[in-house]
């Protein structure tokens, strides 16, 4: 991991298209502004991880299981 120190209102560039700015500092919270192309998803890490995990569970479903329950949902 690259660790950089920034002050309020300073920025970091990631590649040519992503910019992260320190917008506000308040106590132990840092408010970050992120500028990125529309196609790049931006998520809080814990949200990203839980949803990725849940998606990965979803590919393990089998055909038989679906056939058992499909009639119950209308």
């Amino acid at each position, binding site marked *: 991991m690259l660790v950089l120190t920034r002050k309020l209102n300073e920025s970091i560039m990631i590649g040519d298209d992503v910019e992260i700015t320190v917008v506000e500092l308040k106590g132990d919270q840092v408010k970050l502004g992120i500028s990125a192309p*529309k196609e790049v998803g931006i998520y809080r890490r814990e949200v990203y991880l839980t949803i990725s995990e*849940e998606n990965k569970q*979803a590919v393990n479903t089998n055909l038989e*299981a679906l056939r058992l329950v499909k009639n119950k949902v209308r």
Partner: protein
Amino acid sequence: MLIESKHFGKLEIEEKEIITFPEGILGFQEINGYVLLEEKDSPFFWLQAVDVPEVCFIIVDPRIFYPDYNPNVAEDILASLEIKDKTELAYYTIVVIPDDVKKMRTNLQAPLVVNLQKRVAKQIVLNQPEYPLRYFILQELERGGKNAGIDQKTK
């Protein structure tokens, strides 16, 4: 074109059927092309990755059992899907069917939003607490929850 699929073997599909997810699906970002396959006699669909046979999701339009499902979709997301009006969007949520099939669940927090005309889609993450990551479909139907969609014969 011919593709390999996990559950259905070799499938013949048309290029124009392919739905593109420019950012992929969370946890599977490298995969961008999927086809939608119907599961006969059911509201479910399979979302099969075109290039990766093992990646295949069961999805459903949650309004079948949750008629008021109404995700907030930001303007810039609508724009990136080339949609002018929210009503042109199709919503599907990813379904997980564990070994205990009665615990079947779906992810209402992160729906797939699809422009069916332009065949482009995205998985979005909602900030609406009433739409949980794990919505237990059968358990909710049994509670007489959001709708009366339970087949009387199975009671």
